[in-house]
C-alpha cells in the first residue's frame, strides 16, 4: 500500500461534502470535505505500489491550475485503472457542483 499527499492552490471553500465510489476490486472511493479557502489537500491510499508518478500526473491535470474549490480530498484506491480514476474524479467534482 502506498500513501501520498498532494497540495494545490484552490479557490473558495467547497460547498458541501461528497462521497462517490466504493473500495471494490478495480474501483476506488473519493471523499471530499470543504477546507479553508485557497487550499486543496489530497491524501491517496493506493493498493498499487509504485503508482505515485501516475497519481501526480493525473491530479496535476485537474488541480494544478488552482481553479478547483478548496477541499480536503481523500482517495482510497483498490487498484483502479487511470480510466476508472478519471471517471470517479469527474463524478465527484460533478456532485460537488450539483
Amino acid at each position, binding site marked *: *500500500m502506498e500513501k501520498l499527499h498532494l497540495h494545490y492552490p484552490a479557490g473558495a471553500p467547497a460547498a458541501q*461534502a461528497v*462521497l462517490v465510489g*466504493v*473500495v*471494490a*476490486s478495480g*474501483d476506488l*472511493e473519493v*471523499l471530499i*470535505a470543504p477546507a479553508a479557502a485557497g487550499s486543496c489537500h489530497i491524501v491517496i*491510499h*493506493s*493498493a498499487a505500489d509504485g503508482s505515485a508518478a501516475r497519481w501526480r500526473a493525473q491530479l496535476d491535470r485537474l488541480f494544478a491550475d488552482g481553479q478547483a474549490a478548496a477541499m480536503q480530498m*481523500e482517495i*482510497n*484506491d*483498490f487498484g483502479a485503472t487511470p480510466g476508472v480514476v478519471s471517471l470517479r474524479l469527474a463524478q465527484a467534482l460533478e456532485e460537488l457542483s450539483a
Partner: protein
Amino acid sequence: MSHQQDIARLLQGRSFIELSARERAHSLLDAGSCRELAGPFERLYSPWLSAQGIVTQADDGVVICKGLLDGQPAVIAAIEGSFQGGSLGEVGGAKLASALELAAADNRQGIPTRGVILFETGGVRLQEANLGLAAIAEIHAAIADLTRYQPVIGIIAGTVGCFGGMSIAAGLCSYLIVTREARLGLNGPQVIEQEAGVAEYDSRNRPFIWSLTGGEQRQACALADALLEDDSTLIRQQLLQFMARGLPEQPRHRRSRHYLERLLAMDSAAQADADSARQLFHSGEKP
C-alpha cells in the same frame, strides 16, 4: 415471457442488486426520511486492515441508516458486499450490533423502532480474527434482543450472498427475503470443496451450487420467507408487508428441534440434490 417483454422489464425495472449498500438503504426508507449514523465522514476506519497493508473504506463496509418505513421508525444496516467481500470486522461489526442494540433500547422507551439487515457478506473478516467473531456474536445477541419487541427483517439480494457467522444472523431474523441470485449457507462453496473434495462439491459448478444454496431453493425448503424478482419496488413492498405482519408466531430459530430431526433422518450416503433436500425439509411433523 416474450422477448419484447423481457427488454421492457430490463429497461423499466429498478434493479436492487445493482445498487450499493448505501443506495439500497436509501431506496427502502420513506423518501426524505433517511439519516446516516456513523457515516463515512466520521472516518471510523478499520485500524487492522491498514496495519496489514490493505486499503480501508471510510465506512468500513457497513452503512447504518435511521429513518421511516411506511411512517414507522426503523433502522437499516446495509453491508457493502464489494468491499472485502462484505466481511465483518471490529468497526463494521460494532456499527451493526450497536444499531440493533439502540433499536431495542428505543423499544424499551416506547419507540417502536424496527430493524432491517441487508446481508451481502462472506461472514467474519479473517484479517480481524477474534474481534470480528466477537462482533458477530454481539450481532446475534442484538437480533435476539430486538426480536422480543419488533420483527427484524433480513434481505439477501446477491450477488455475494450470506455465509459464515452472518448466515446464523440471517437465521435469527423474523423474516428473510431472498432473490434467485442470493445464496445462503454456513460455509461457502470453496470451503466445502476444500474440506469434502471436488467430487462431493464442485465450487465451480454454478448450477449445482445455486440448486443447493440459492435463494429459490432456500425458499422452497422454507428457510427463507419470500422469493422475489430483483426489483427495488417489489422488495420494498414485501418488506412493508412483513413489517405490518409483526412478530411471527414461532420464529424459525425456535423450531431448531424440527430441523435437527430432519438432519438426523437424512441419508448422507446418497449425494444430496435439490429435490431430496426439499423433500427432507418438508418431511416429518409440521413445526
